[in-house]
């Protein structure tokens, strides 16, 4: 099953995707008792597949705890997948370790929500950005200095920022520093995990515009993780919706936002408060809370909250299937 190539890319299938995620699972053990034995698993990511083409942005949305960050960390190979394969640029990296993994790392980088905790406070901004270049021996000291300055310019910071420390910068500026550092090794893929969520609205736009510029300039691909549906729509080509470790819908954004198929996507969209008066939208208010991924409901994991639940949903798990070209949905209504 070639999950999720958008129509326009379908014809270009000779070009291999930049990223291929195949049946990825990531389970965390739950230990208990005096012997700390494993008594169960948190199925943080449970059988997720999709592809990402060069220059493409895939948005990843879903509620807290549904596994977005875990999936992002597996793609970055911060975590090793429990099962499944992960291919970047034609090379399988699912279980690579040590030096072999380090050699490929420059191709993919991650930008986090809290730029402060991801930057070592005792290092100057110059050395923070130079560090990956030094470790990977990208030129002489002088050449690296030059690269640092050009990276600062790319993210819109002045060269004198080099000698200052992270705490001297505002949240938006720190996020720029983190992005400059992520860009240092000229990655092809950036996983941005809630990269603008902690920023003030007026600053958020600066960073979103910067990410868009970088994409144009360097042909970057993004996996853009956020719980903000409007932000995801703004940056993405396609959007994947996650619920309790699984993709429930994956579609080009034009389709996902105008004709969402999955009842959960419909509820999410109807609950997103728009900053406009008089938007006449049918609001679907879901009852109940998000179940724990340690004890996901049987059958369709959404059945405990789904307004359209049927008998079959309680026992049989729906597969993610292509419903209309490019739009994939995991729901019994469509089968």
């Amino acid at each position, binding site marked *: 099953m070639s999950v999720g190539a958008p129509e326009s890319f379908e014809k270009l299938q000779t070009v291999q995707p930049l990223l291929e995620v195949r049946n990825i699972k990531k389970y965390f053990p739950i230990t208990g008792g005096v012997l700390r034995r494993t008594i169960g698993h948190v199925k943080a990511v449970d059988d997720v597949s999709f592809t990402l083409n060069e220059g493409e942005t895939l948005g990843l949305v879903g509620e807290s705890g549904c596994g977005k960050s875990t999936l992002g960390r597996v793609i970055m190979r911060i975590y090793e997948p429990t099962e499944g394969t992960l291919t970047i640029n034609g090379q399988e990296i699912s279980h690579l370790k040590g030096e072999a993994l380090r050699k490929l790392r420059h191709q993919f980088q991650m930008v986090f929500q809290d730029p402060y905790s991801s930057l070592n406070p005792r290092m100057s901004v110059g050395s923070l950005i130079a560090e990956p270049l030094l470790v990977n021996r990208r030129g002489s000291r002088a050449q690296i200095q030059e690269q640092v300055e050009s990276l600062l310019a790319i993210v819109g910071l002045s060269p004198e920022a080099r000698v200052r420390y992270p705490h001297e910068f505002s949240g938006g500026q720190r996020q720029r520093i983190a992005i400059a550092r992520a860009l240092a090794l000229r990655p092809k893929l950036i996983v941005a995990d809630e990269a603008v969520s902690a920023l003030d609205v007026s600053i958020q736009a600066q960073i979103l*515009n910067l990410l868009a510029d970088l994409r144009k300039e360097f042909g970057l691909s993004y996996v853009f993780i956020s719980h903000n549906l409007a932000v995801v729509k703004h940056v993405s080509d396609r959007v994947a919706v996650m619920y309790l470790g699984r993709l429930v819908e994956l579609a080009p954004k034009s389709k996902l936002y105008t004709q969402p198929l999955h009842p959960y996507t419909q509820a999410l969209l109807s609950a997103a408060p*728009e*900053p406009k008066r008089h938007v006449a939208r049918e609001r679907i208010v879901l009852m109940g809370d998000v179940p724990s991924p340690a004890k996901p409901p049987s059958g369709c994991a959404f059945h405990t909250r789904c307004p359209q639940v049927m008998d079959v949903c309680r026992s049989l798990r729906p597969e993610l299937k292509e419903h209309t070209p490019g739009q994939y949905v995991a729901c019994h209504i469509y089968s």
Partner: protein
Amino acid sequence: MAEPLLKVRNLRTYFISKNSTVKAVDGVDFEVYPGKVLGIVGESGSGKSMTSLSVMRLVPGPQGKIVEGEILLEGQDLLQLSERAMRDVRGNRIGMIFQEPMSALNPVLKIGEQIGEVLVRHRKVTKAQAKKQAVALLRSVGFPRAEQIVDEYPHQLSGGMRQRAMIAMAMACEPSLLIADEPTTALDVTIQAQVLDLMRSLKEQNGTAILLITHDLGVVAQMADDVVVMYGGQVVEAASADEIFDHPLHPYTQALMASIPVIEEERERLQAIPGTVPSAADFPSGCRFAPRCALAEERCHEQMPELREISLAHAVRCLVVQGKTDRRENAT
């Protein structure tokens, strides 16, 4: 229109230390009407929380101090009350819910005991009556298992459940004013929708007035009747929610609306606001938005604009922006 329930006049709350004076709230005026929601928006550090804590007289001391102003609740100036009298106001005439429910809930007390405590203190009911009322309150905020929840501890509840328990506690004495400071910021959208629905029904069924503080323009658009936009410790624009969203006048409000992505529209490029929020310890002289304002003129850097009512019930703090009538003339 009815008399305002809460009237805040020229409120100034400062943090004064040897080296600096942080003007967290610097001359704020607004009114909240019975059965209406007043939304206060503004970015981080603009003074929203300090405004609400000032109304409750809970500004963190000893550095934080209300240095000037009046806070009139049904005509009575809360700033003139003794601390003891103020304790009868909190939780009784004014309820409060915060962004992080764990900071307001006592982790070692059962949910029912915490709600009951409020009732015993202000309503002089017996413990048994209090527990019964707690169950009813929990049911009214959407807990089907209310009988069990009263005997559970805060850590046994999810974030959304805790937030609803806190609302039940805030509503226990049927306060005429509810202050909600970022009540849904930590919640998921689907849970946020539940909590917002609950607040809406409080206002509609009990006529509760709500002071809703948030940085989320979406939440304000869905909830508020009136809106106050804060920047740098001041009110920069105040009007009905329809006016604010349909005809924003202050350059900051306009820029804010253009800087956020909106689902219903395709925005090629967001209109970013350059620069950063000024520090409350070191405001620029003149208009506090001037360093970032696209319309700034020379005089903006020298002269502090007053908050002027430039059309009926629409006030703007700007030297340059004209009223709606003038705007129409300019357009033609």
